[in-house]
């Protein structure tokens, strides 16, 4: 089943085509990677899906329903959550409150707050942060701030999670832990769509990879196929 699909998605910033006519889809239960050199349009695509940006060209569907034109909070409540390339946490709030806000607002109204609080604790433990519950999020290390973001996104009970460069700036041990986390998220029944620059990680966890270059999709396939794709190799290594 296609949980997310886009047809002819384009986005222009002034004269610059950040995305031109991109078709893509994500199936339920998959981990799909989105890669490409800097400026390829990866984050723009995520921003369009999560409605941080809007476009009139192209259609994006989530669970078969058109979501282009909706507001970010509506998309979140439909079950599509995301993290950000540069962390956007609630810095002065404790880590637990960050997650609690996700579980309080991210799902259709009427969730009892006690239930939300319990869910938040469980998720903080899931990402391995139960020791830092009361620490203001801004005092956490980068890797832990990213974990808070993941827990906060998971708290909204998503069916699809967009992870934007979860592993950027992490050391090898942390990258390994992050890869494990991504797999564990999928094991909870959540489809994952990731942007990543760390090749080892992306090749290791993804079922399928989409490659963007200058706003266009140049390849799509299993990690193996992508690694052997001439166009991709050219883009990354030069001819």
């Amino acid at each position: 089943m296609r949980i997310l699909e886009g047809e002819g998605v384009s986005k222009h910033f002034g004269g610059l085509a950040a995305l031109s006519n991109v078709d893509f889809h994500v199936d339920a239960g998959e981990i799909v990677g989105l890669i490409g050199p800097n400026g390829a349009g990866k984050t723009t695509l995520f921003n369009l899906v999560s409605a941080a940006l809007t476009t009139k060209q192209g259609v994006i569907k989530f669970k078969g329903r058109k979501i282009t034109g909706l507001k970010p909070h509506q998309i979140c409540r439909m079950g599509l959550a995301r993290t950000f390339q540069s962390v956007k946490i609630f810095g002065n709030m404790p880590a637990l409150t960050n997650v609690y806000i996700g579980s309080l607002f991210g799902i259709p109204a009427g969730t009892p707050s006690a239930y939300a609080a319990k869910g938040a604790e469980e998720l903080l433990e899931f990402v391995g942060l139960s020791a830092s519950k009361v620490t203001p999020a801004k005092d956490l290390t980068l890797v832990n701030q990213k974990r808070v973001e993941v827990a906060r996104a998971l708290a909204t009970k998503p069916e699809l999670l967009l992870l934007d460069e979860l592993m950027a700036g992490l050391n090898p041990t942390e990258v390994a832990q992050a890869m494990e986390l991504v797999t564990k998220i999928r094991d909870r029944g959540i489809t994952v769509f990731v942007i990543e620059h760390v090749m080892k990680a992306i090749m290791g966890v993804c079922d399928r990879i989409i490659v963007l270059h200058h706003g266009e999709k140049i390849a799509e396939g299993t990690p193996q196929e992508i690694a052997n794709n001439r166009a991709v190799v050219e883009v990354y290594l030069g001819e």
Partner: protein
Amino acid sequence: MNSVASIVLNRSFQLGLLAVILIALATLPLHYQGYNIVRLLNIFMFVVLTVSWVIFSGSTGYMSLASAAFFGVGIYTSALLGDKLPIAVVVGIGALVSSCVAFLVGALTLRLRGIYFAIFTFGLVELIKHLTLWWEINMEDRRGRLVVYVENDIIFWVMLSILVATLLTAYFIRRSKWGLALQSIGENEEAAAHMGINVTLVKVITFAVSALFVGASGAIIATRWTYIDPGIAFNPLYSFMPVLMAIFGGMGRLLGPVIGAIAFTYLKEELGTEFPELYMLIFGIILIVAILYMPNGLVGLIQRLWIRGFRRQDADT
């Protein structure tokens, strides 16, 4: 644990104390008349303005300078309707009209961030002031108008009721899910939106709610002034004072803006009567010192001394 501290921090003790203060204040005009009642009225008014400002701007970080606009709308409501309707109704209408203005302005401008929002809201005060002025001069051939007379006691009780309503609203917003949404908007609006918070709705409604009390207090205080004109009603001072008072008191707790407004209004009046020429100068110096040495305001300072005091006592025993 220290026995004094445990009594002071006890919840039912605090509630009891608040009830006693409220009863004392409410019965004050019955056995006491004079200038001090008027003074208290001024303090109430500034507490209302400051706490209302903090309800919206304190948590979201959107610095609104529109207080004077909402205040003035309340004042003009009173001037226009004061002799036609009972005063309680007039105050209610003043509150609602101000709130509607805030709702419209909010819906149009809350996409502006930071300094742009501050400038726009300040521009709003001037815009309404000059529109009213133009209207009065060109359409009605007059400037300013008289406001109906209301007894001091009535003004006092109405203002006290507005004050209680403002404080209760601020308290419950702070403790609620809604307050958490406001705070997260202040921390990071984009993330808040992606967490399922309808940020536009939360901001606009809170802005409108905070204007209710500002409009109401304008409507009642106008009756004390007997004559108003656009310059008096839309005085930008009522936009800046709440901001300064909130900073002076500290915004971390609800008590901060309250104490800030009380101390500031008192100081303003004392200095204004004792040193009429130097008062602005002294005032400025106090403010600078406060900002430099009390980053969390008066309440932050008291808290720090309080904690230090206990440490010393603990060390002694």
